[in-house]
């Protein structure tokens, strides 16, 4: 069956221009590739609103969720995305596999290939693990977050949410100023956001304590600040990062109290923003640390919309990397 035919009822624009079998980073994508994914996601989002939430686009394809790090929400999102596209999806997580017995990524990968899978969705604590995996296997590799490197589908769903919010207001991404706030140095979400936003022309300011948001990031073409209050009135989007205690090797700030005083988003700070500011957070939140509950649950917040959009974006990525790209290969 031709996957493209099964989607004729859903207009998937320009997807035939997609050539990649892998999604490893947003750094390596160009603006038009990013737009193809976002446009495909918009077309597929409608599927989730049907009573029967399924299209046969990836029927007969096998996707493995290979998660070396705990992540309930991303794993579930990929699982639902694959199921909505009618792919078979298998969970392969560390605790139930031989990985915990010291098996290398190479051996794990070869075993999966021997079982005949079409795509591996990988989450790994080591930066660059998906790049390594892609050199070891022939099937599609989709990065679901690697160490402090990238989290491409998170970057895409953030972008999707921003676009969905501002395009109806007559603003393009290139008209927007986005603040990415907090533990930037350990954040794969930040890096994917930086690449995606900058390729689409948005202005970016990174905000955080100098120990977690060093000036050297300016060499990636972004502005760096440690004065949150001064940045807030100028931005259209505030993307609050999770403080990743698990990746901070020595205390990078003196206390939670001091951190939230200077870099937490609370109601007072929200009032400094433009009235139509959009607040994002990749989750899971440290409520009361980087973001207070009234802000997280308030009208400016798109946090739950991010989750819904994440599903559509992941459907699009699976469709493009497995469906479209395998058509092209065959």
């Amino acid at each position, binding site marked *: 069956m031709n996957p493209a035919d099964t989607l004729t009822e859903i207009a998937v624009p320009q997807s035939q221009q997609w050539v990649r079998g892998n999604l490893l980073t947003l750094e390596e994508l160009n603006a038009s590739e990013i737009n193809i994914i976002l446009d495909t996601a918009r077309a597929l989002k409608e599927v989730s609103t049907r009573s029967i939430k399924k299209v046969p686009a990836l029927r007969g394809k096998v996707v493995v969720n290979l998660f070396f790090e705990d992540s309930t929400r991303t794993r579930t999102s990929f699982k639902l995305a694959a199921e909505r596209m009618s792919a078979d999806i298998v969970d392969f997580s560390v605790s139930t596999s031989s990985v915990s017995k010291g098996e290398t990524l190479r051996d794990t990968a070869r075993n999966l290939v021997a079982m005949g899978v079409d795509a591996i969705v990988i989450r790994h604590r080591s*930066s660059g693990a998906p790049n390594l995996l892609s050199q070891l296997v022939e099937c599609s590799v989709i990065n679901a977050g690697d*160490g402090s490197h990238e989290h491409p589908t998170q970057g895409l769903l953030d972008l999707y949410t921003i676009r969905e919010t501002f395009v109806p207001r007559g603003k393009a991404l290139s008209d927007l100023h986005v603040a990415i706030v907090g533990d930037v140095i350990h954040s794969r979400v930040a890096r994917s956001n930086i690449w995606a936003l900058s390729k689409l022309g948005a202005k970016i300011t990174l905000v955080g304590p100098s120990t977690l948001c060093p000036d050297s990031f300016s060499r990636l073409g972004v502005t760096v600040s440690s004065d949150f209050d001064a940045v807030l009135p100028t931005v259209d989007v505030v993307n609050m990062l999770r403080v990743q205690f698990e990746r901070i090797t020595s205390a990078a700030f003196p206390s939670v109290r001091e951190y939230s005083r200077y870099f937490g988003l609370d109601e007072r700070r929200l009032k400094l923003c433009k009235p139509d500011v959009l607040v994002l957070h990749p989750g899971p939140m440290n409520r009361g640390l980087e973001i207070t509950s009234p802000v997280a649950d308030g009208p400016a917040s798109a946090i739950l919309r991010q989750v819904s959009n994440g599903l559509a974006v992941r459907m699009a990525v699976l469709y493009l990397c497995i469906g479209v790209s395998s058509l092209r290969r065959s």
Partner: protein
Amino acid sequence: MSQRQLLLLNGTIVDPARGIFAPGDVLIQDGHIAQVGTRIRDMAPEAAREDVAGCLVTPGLIDMHVHLREPGQEHKETIATGMAAAVAGGFTTICCMPNTVPALDNETQIEYVLTQAQREGTCRVLPFGAITKGRQGAELAEMQLMHDAGAIGFSDDGVGVASAAVMQKALSYVRMFDGLISQHCEEPTLSGGAMHAGITALRLGLGGISSASEELMIARDLLLNQRIGARYHVQHISTAGAVELIRRAKQQGQAVTAEVTPHHLLLTDESCGDYNTHYKMNPPLRSHADVEACLAGVADGTIDVLATDHAPHAAEEKELEFDRAPFGIVGLETALALYAEALVKTNQLNWLKLIGKLTAAPARVLKLHDSGSLAIGAPADITIIDPNKVWKIDPSRFRSKSRNTPFASRMVTGQVRMTFVAGRCVYQATD
């Protein structure tokens, strides 16, 4: 008699210890250098003859920084395979580092390495002993016993001696028997990353090893040793700041020596950009400015010695995630050509000076009185080099047990053709 005589004819004699770079012949007799000059061939009409026209005839190369992995990690390298790699690279004397498993931290271990090397017999192996027991940085190892058993110097290589107090004691202690301390300079509290702390690490989301980590330990050691005056050597220098610290110390008359590796003269941290673990080493590949500073340091004599830091690892170990893969690359079989590319091709050094930093200079640092020159009466450790031979680096042909090199398929110029140890030909190139 004739069996024990060999004439190397028509080569260019390169003897940096005496500043000689001139056409001539060398007569080897009974394992020693009997004559060197232009009118010597009639002295030994019965001698076997080897025409080495177009080649440099140099003292056997000396590498004062090699990892042989035995005992404990024989899947990476053994003393025998490491020695085979050494002579294929033109090295007749190599110093092996004590970070084996267990560490070379007592006289029995030193004797073990010497015995194994002697049994193999192809080149000279001079083991370093650990500075501290188990390389743990806490208690001094039995350095004087190791010295008397034949340890050439002391190092905790792989890590630096983190405690200033322990380092002060070590410098003071080796002063008693004029021992050599060779330090891996890395302040651990500023380290712990997988590559140079620069923009590439920031982009890749990898932890960094800062330049300050290396420089801080060098500065500390220089300060400590100012009052002690032990023989102190800085291993594998990699940053501009480190070069400058050593340059200034030398200007102020302090006794300090330093070495560099080929990769720190040819590659930068940008090479790590696609997580290729063949570019993962410690010290890490640094910035362009650091490479320039290291080249300048070699050219002006701040950096005395050219070494390899030959660090074999099995293929499956290097095929890990970047942050989990081990540090280091093999170097013995590629060093000469890579140094020629970095230094001779760029006119930073001529061949005489280059060979000097691979022979006379390490002999001086190590106090090897019988090696590093073509003096009459010295053991005939000799390397024959074709300086114009163009060849392609092919790891599948390495004698080393490991193939971990970022230089695979690189076209290089300058090749070792023959290696003699004590007058015996231990290596001959086949093409």
